């Protein structure tokens, strides 16, 4: 044990440090060496415990309690999702529309079924007799299930009996299939007004110029207009898998 001379120092008037004269101060009450060592031992024990806890939690932690069915284990990119056109091509007219505050450039794709071979309907119906009785069709068009509106709704409420190539409004006015929204708008006025302003339904193009829009019938089958459910695209990668999703390992795990 190294004995140190106990020196009491203080600053004198000139600012120099010098020894203080006088009786030695009383030695401290507690025993010097033993408590110091034991407290350092305590220090060491606590430090080791804390370090062990930290390292243990590092080993334990990480991936977390996520099962494969909970989603977010694998990373997907847009090209892995087939069938969806992320390039979002515009109709030719819209593409060429000059961007600028121009009005009037609204383009719409052809109505559904108009190029399917069914149209023009008059090919068959011009020769046929009109049967105005409410019934379930059996000979033709039996694949159409009408789920639209009140129970007593039926075909000729919307289709014009005398000329099937046009639709008929309530007031008797005849409209082409290109303007079918006028027919829908008779009952669905709020939505029609929203659609007219662009709030309802999908639009593509220029916010300050030409736009392409869709007819009601492009999204809503007029015979069964309720929107079908669709399969969602994959969920994002969970953060605990972000680094691993870059590698193949986690993909294999999700296929187990």
């Amino acid at each position, binding site marked *: 044990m190294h004995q140190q001379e*106990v020196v009491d120092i203080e600053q004198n008037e000139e600012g120099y440090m010098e020894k203080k004269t006088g009786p030695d101060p009383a030695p401290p009450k507690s025993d010097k060496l033993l408590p110091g060592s034991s407290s350092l031992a305590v220090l060491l024990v606590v430090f080791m415990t804390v370090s062990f806890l930290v390292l243990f939690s590092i080993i334990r932690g990480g991936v977390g309690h996520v099962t494969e069915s909970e989603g977010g284990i694998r990373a997907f990119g847009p090209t892995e999702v087939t069938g969806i056109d992320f390039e979002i091509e515009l109709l030719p007219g819209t593409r060429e529309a000059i961007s600028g505050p121009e009005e009037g450039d609204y383009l719409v794709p052809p109505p559904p079924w108009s190029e399917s071979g069914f149209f023009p309907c008059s090919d068959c119906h011009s020769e046929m007799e009109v049967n105005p009785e409410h019934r379930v069709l059996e000979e033709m068009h039996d694949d159409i299930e009408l789920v639209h509106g009140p129970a007593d709704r039926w075909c000729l409420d919307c289709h014009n009996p005398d000329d099937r190539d046009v639709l008929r409004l309530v007031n008797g006015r005849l409209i082409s299939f290109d303007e079918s929204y006028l027919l829908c708008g008779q009952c669905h006025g709020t939505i029609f007004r929203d659609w007219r302003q662009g709030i309802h339904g999908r639009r593509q193009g220029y916010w300050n110029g030409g736009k392409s829009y869709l007819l009601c019938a492009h999204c809503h089958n007029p015979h069964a207009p309720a929107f079908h459910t669709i399969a969602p695209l994959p969920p994002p990668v969970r953060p605990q898998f972000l680094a691993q999703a870059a590698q193949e390992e986690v993909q294999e795990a999700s296929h187990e």
Partner: protein
Amino acid sequence: MIKDIASFITGSARIAFKGNATFYAWIAFLGLVFLWGLAAWWNQFQQGLITTNMRDQVSWAFYIGNFTFLVGVAAAAVMLVIPAYIYNWKPIKEIAIFGELLAVSAIVMSMLFVFVDVGRPDRVWQLMPFIGTPNLPSSLLGWDVMVLNGYLALNLLIVLHLLYTGFHGRPYKRNFVVPLLLLSIPAAVGIHTVTAFVYAGTAARPFWNSAILAPRFLASAFCSGPAILLILFQILQRTTSIKIKDEAIWKIAELMAYAMFLNLFLFGAEIFREYYSNTHHLIHTQYLYSGVHGHDALVPYAWASLICSVVAFLLFLIPATRTNLVTLNIGCVLIFAGVYIEKGMALVIPGMTPDTLGEFYEYVPTLSEVRVGAGIFAVGFLIFTLLCKMAIPILQDAASGEST
């Protein structure tokens, strides 16, 4: 003048690196830990921060937690200056310099923790005024950079002056040092307040967005930072001839006890507000203390921190245990551990868990982060050791009036 400076540099280097076997073992150990951390950091620098476990959901974690804690330690150095120079209390005056040394080491560590945390360390120069574009007065982190560098410069100035004059056996210039020391008091309060404001100003994180956060930071800093110094002083008492009165140690411990009380009181106030008002924001405190929906990784640490702080407070409050070196040292370790958790992980992680959109991502540090953290702590300990090694003989020489 140049000769004086040159001899100071070479002389203090000689003093700093000369020692006994224990000293060399310690330096070697720190060097190894530093290299271990440096390797991890280099890997992180090349790959990016993906080597950590930080993700978008918890974007600040281990590094920033350590940064916050260490700024507190640096601020707490002022704990010694207040009684020494404001109240002219002799027993602390001669040893106040160790507080400055601790402040320098802690500030360097905290700045290193920020350096390893940014995604583009090659762009940190943009934070400097005139050559960069610091976003002042609006960005709190911009202010933090200013005040931290200023505080480092201030403390370095004081330390270098004291060591330089002591090395050459001259008395230090009181008119130069004392105003700087007095300035370091508001500077210390300033650095920690600005760091607290970085958190407290964030409206998006309700766990942090509290007016009480800045006082809590100061209280927890003052109650934990001097713990290192208490242990150091006991070591110095036994291994050098510097006279450190036990009175000084008891007084520091007493002041720490007051700070601990304030810390616990402010904590209690925060807990009351959270649990009584029972708003949505409670979920962060719940995550910390009881876990939410099975996410409870931090719960044991939160309670450990609380228990450590309370026990340490009692040990420091009761005069019998405060003046008993065993219990005092236990108390020092406990409060240091308690506040390390409280200002580190138990501050940053619950602030970000659940994230702003309600998602729970349980963060635990990776080995890489722990390595980098250990490396930075090794640097800090190294600087502190070498500075103390330089300061001790100078103080001893001044004490005995002749070289030993």
